[in-house]
Every structure is written in C-alpha cells, then in structure tokens.
C-alpha cells in the first residue's frame, strides 16, 4: 500500500470532515433544543459562502489587501448568517411551536427551497469563482502534497471554532442556559431562563458556524453555487446523526468519520459513488443505530 497516497487521503478526509462537523454542529444544537431538523441549515451555509464572496468581491474592487479582505469577508458572512438564522427562526419556526410535529419540518423544507431560489434569482444559477485570498504559507512547502494553504486554514479555524464552542457551552452563563433549556425547557423557564432568547441564540450560534464553514469551503473549492447547500446540508446532517444527534462531541466525531470515509472511498474505489456513500450511511445508521456512534448513554445534549 502506498503510504503517501494514504496520508494524502487521510488529510483530504480530515479537511472535508471538519467542514461537515462545523455544519453538523448547527443541526445538533438546534435539534437538542427544539427537536427540529432545521432543514434550511444547509442554505445558511450557502448564504455564508455567497455573502463572503460578494463582500470580498466588492472590497477587492476598492483595493484592499488580500489577507484583510478574507477576514472582513468572513466576519461579514458570520454577521449576516446569524441574522439569517435569527430571522429564519422568527418567521418560519417560532409561530409553529406546539404545532404537530410535521408542520415545522414542512415549513423548514419550504424555507430551504425559498432561500435557494432567492439566491438563484438575486444572483445567478452559474458557478461563481471565489477569489483566491489566502496568504502564502511557506512553512507548508515540504508537505504541500498533503496539505495546501486552504487545508491548513480549514483545520486550524475549525479546530479553534470547535474548542471555543465547547468552552462557550460548558463554562459561560449562556452556555449553561442552553444546556438547561435542552434538558428540560419547562424547568428552565421556571428557573428564569428566557427560552425564546436561548432558542434564538442557538440559531445564531449554529448559523455562524455554518457561515464559517461556507467561507472556508468556498476558498477551498474556489467556486460557489446556489445549490451547494443542499448536498452539504444533507451530509452534515448525516454526520450529526452518525455521531448521535443532540450531542456536540458526536457532531464533531461524526463529521470527521464521514469525511474520512468519503475520502477513502473516493481514493480506493471510485468517486462516482461518493454521494451515495453518505446517504447509505445515513439510512443504515438511522435504521440500526439511531442514537449514533456515541450512543444514548453518553449523549450530552447541547
């Protein structure tokens, strides 16, 4: 076995998996709190990529240095996606709290289609090139066959984001409130936690992570399209379920496992069936082990 090829695939999978994990966290957070599959989450990721692209493009025209543009664009994407996530919850999910289980799900699917077509109509149906804004990273010179600048950036940023999220959930007041709401919303209300605000906060946090994922993947792939959110969203959902939905470490593990599995399948078998693998895993997991890898006993809700 060619060890170099293996390492290459391994890091490819890791990069891909980190992105899935970032998006999967959004699904898991929302599911943990209100028990809803936020079908439009993939679209928020796509909006993040588009917002970053447009802001970066606009700034590029007015002549800013590349490194600065990337940071500003990423921040803009996070801000706007949080706003989108917040609005989404207010418009499409909040009025349906307490409605039959299927109602918010259908509403979410409707929102997903709506957002896709909103971007399609407002921008374009073509793939749009994403400007290359990454600084040169000389220290990667010797290992550039396994890791380019964008891979390095993805791994670094997603690791930092996940650590920050874990700290936020674990140690801050708001994080504690989120965990309490996830465990028992009524009890949390009795203890004086504003559940509505916590739910909004969950959407904002999840959407910012998705936006980050969108910016990273856009600068990695170099192009953006209105339809990228659908497949990415489904795969991230697979990752969330794989790790055990509602569990934060589960989403991270699930994302990495899915990324690695895809990368190795593509490398050793064929790239044609890459997407099918994710759906196959999703179906098998949901049927045989709906609690995911980390299992029910260890599930740590939000």
């Amino acid at each position: 076995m060619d060890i170099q090829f293996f390492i290459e695939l391994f890091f490819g999978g890791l990069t891909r998996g980190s992105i899935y994990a970032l998006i999967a966290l959004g699904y898991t957070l929302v599911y943990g709190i209100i028990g809803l599959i936020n079908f439009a989450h993939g679209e928020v990721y796509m909006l993040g990529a588009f917002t970053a692209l447009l802001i970066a493009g606009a700034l590029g025209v007015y002549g800013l240095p590349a490194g600065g543009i990337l940071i500003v664009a990423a921040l803009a994407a996070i801000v706007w996606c949080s706003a989108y996530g917040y609005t989404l919850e207010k418009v499409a999910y909040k009025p349906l709290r307490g409605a039959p289980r299927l109602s918010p799900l259908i509403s979410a699917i409707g929102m997903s289609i709506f957002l896709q077509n909103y971007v399609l109509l407002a921008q374009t149906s073509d793939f749009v090139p994403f400007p290359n804004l990454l600084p040169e990273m000389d220290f990667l010179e010797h290992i550039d066959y396994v890791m380019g600048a964008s891979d390095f950036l993805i791994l670094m940023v997603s690791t930092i984001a996940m650590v920050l999220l874990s700290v936020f959930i674990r140690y801050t007041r708001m994080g504690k409130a989120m965990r309490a709401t996830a465990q028992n919303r009524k009890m949390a209300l009795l203890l004086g936690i504003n559940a509505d605000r916590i739910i909004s906060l969950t959407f904002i946090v999840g959407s910012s992570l998705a936006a980050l994922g969108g910016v990273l993947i856009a600068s990695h792939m170099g192009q953006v399209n209105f339809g990228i959110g659908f497949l990415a969203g489904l795969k991230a959902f697979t990752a969330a379920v794989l790790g055990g939905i509602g569990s934060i470490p589960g989403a991270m593990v699930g994302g990495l496992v899915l990324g690695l599995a895809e990368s190795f399948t593509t490398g050793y078998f064929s790239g044609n069936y890459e997407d099918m693998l994710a759906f196959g895993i999703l179906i098998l997991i949901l049927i045989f082990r709906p609690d995911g890898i980390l299992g029910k006993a260890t599930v740590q809700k939000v």
Partner: protein
Amino acid sequence: MQRILKAAIAALWFMLLTLPVLGIKLNVAAKSVIWRFDRILALGAGIFVLALIWDWCFTRKAAGIKIVTLPAGFNLAEIIEAFRNRRGLRLGGLALLAVVLLGMPMVSSFYQTNIMISALLYVMLALGLNIVVGLAGQLVLGYVAFYAIGAYTYGLLNQYFGLGFWACLPIGGFLTVLFGLGLGFPVLRLRGDYLAIVTLGFGEIVRLTLQNWNSVTGGPRGVSDIPRPGFFGMSMDITASTTYIYYLVLAAVIITIVVITRLKNSRVGLALQALREDEIACEAMGVDITRVKLSAFALGSCWAGFAGVIFAAKTTYINPSSFTFMESAMILSMVVLGGMGSIAGVVIAALILILAPEYLRAFSDYRMLLFGAIMVIMMLFRPQGLISGERRRYRIGALHGAEGGRS
C-alpha cells in the same frame, strides 16, 4: 401606530439582511461592483406592506377569527357542502367538467395539450403522495424516486427487451410497489422527521444510481427513443398520439380518483387515517401498524409508477435530471396546499401550481420561490390546506338504524 412602527422596523431589518445577496452584483470580468439599491428599496417597501398583513393575520389567528372572510353570497364551505350533498348539482358539475376535459384537446393547441398532460401527471403523483402523507401521515420526501423507477422500467424494458407500453404499465406499477415495500420495511420503526430524511436519502440514491450506472441506464444521457403508446397497431402522427396520451392520462387520473375515494372509506383507509392521528392509540385499538404502514407505502408508490411509465411514453426521452429532490418538493407542496387527505383539494392545488406558472409567464421564474413560500405560509396560517380533508362522521341516529347515516 405601533403596528406601523413594527412594520417599519421589519422592513429595515430585511433591507439590511438582503443587502449583500440582493444588493451587490459583481462583474468579475470588468472588475466592478454594481450596487442595486433600487432593489433593496423596493424590497423594503414590499416587506413593509407584508409585515402589516403578517401582523394582521396573526392577530386574527390569535383571536380565532377566520383570516379570509368570503362575501356572504359566496361561502366556499357551503358550496362544497352543497356539492357533497345535492346529487343533482354534483352530477351536473361532473358532467360539465367531463365535457370540458374531454373536449379540451379538440379546441386547444398541441402545446396546450402537452401542458395539460403534464399537469394531469402531477395530479396523479400528488394524489399518490396524498395517500402516504395526507392519509397515513408518513412524510415521504423521496417520492420522485418511484416516479423515476416507473419511467426507467418502461425505458429500459423497451430498450433491452422491446416490451411495449401496455406490457410495461403493469410491470412498472408492480416494480414500484416492490420498491415501496422494500423502502417501507426498514423504515417501519422511524418517527416522522427521521422517516422524512431516510426517504429523501432513498430518493437521492435512486437518482444517483440511475446517473452513475452507465452500462445499464445510460448514465446522465438517459434513455432516448422510447416509443409512444400504440393503439391496436394504429400508426399515429405526433399530434394524434399526443391527444391519445391526453385521454390516457385523463383516464388514469379518473381511475386514481375513484380508487382513492373508495380506499379512503375502506378498512385500510380508515386504518391509515388512524395511524396519522396517533400511532400509539392506533396500535392500541388493534390495528396492525406494520401492515398498515406497508400498505400505505405500496398504495402510494404504485401511482407514481404508473405516472412514470406514462411520463416516459409522453416525453420519449428520460434522464436522471428529471427526478431531482425539487420534483419531490413540488409534489409535496401540492399536497400541502391542497390539504392533506383531501382529494379535491389536492387535484385543484396540483392544477393551479402547474398551470398558473405556464400561463403567467412573468411568474415562471419565481415558481420554485413561490412553492417554498407556499409551504411555509400554509403551515403557518392554514395547515389543513385549501380544502380540508373531510372526515367521516356518524350521527347517533344512524347507529339506531334511523335515516341520516353519513353526514
């Protein structure tokens, strides 16, 4: 006053929200940015009005008042009730409808007949999905997979074995039922939202298989030169055969409606509706959940199979891109708009959603946007759909053997 302020804030919020995606247009080649503030302003004005309506709708909803009050002489519920109860009116209405539908290909152009065929195909699909989603309450998001299986059954059997349309129609139906059962078995234990995702995955797997299995399905190129259905070996030109297919689809839709109407009030149909209302209570009442769920899948999927075979015969060319998730979503939005479990509602919704964008060309770009919005708005304000599915009710008198019976 406070409402106006709220609406203004909402408008401002949405203007900020849509600023990048709607407001910035990049010209990559010329390296320039076009700021489209006119659009943002137009959107703001639109949102302002919408927010006022939105607020008004929610106040009325909260107060329990109907959102739309029809003028006194035109009470939709009464008209529907009249159609349900007065035999003469019903027969008259049906006769008028029959004349219009039967006469349609004689007066309309080739193009319009074609549109009507696809609208009727969607009616069939929506009615089929209505069994699974509307009656049984199982949210299936990969319904288009069954449509694809039907279409490819005809396409491939014809290509490799030379089987004709009439031989493939039952085979297509049978195969989709098999697939429906095959999907139904493993997902028996799943709850609503997981079921939705698994069926979505199933739909995508079917599409990806068709797309990647080059040696058999022709891959992304699909299957071409599928013959149109024959009529006792008569040779027909394209216009005549389109008219023929129109009548065929019409007959298929009528059969579907009759069968589903009968089904709804049958033992199985009632069990399906009990399943929708409450799975646990349903099981406690002695209904075999496994059997009922499987029959829902089987009964729902076979119509998509038939529709698929007819679709392949109509277009004579099929490829995987006709069977994307968007199609499933479209069919679902028809069921949602029409009213889950309501046959008349679903038929009307399917016709509106297919025909309106065809005839209002200005709207055709906004079609999918509208479909998405419809799904959200219906869930918020009228989850039972345009015409809510009628429930079978018994009067006490009927139980004592007096007149009345169903009402």
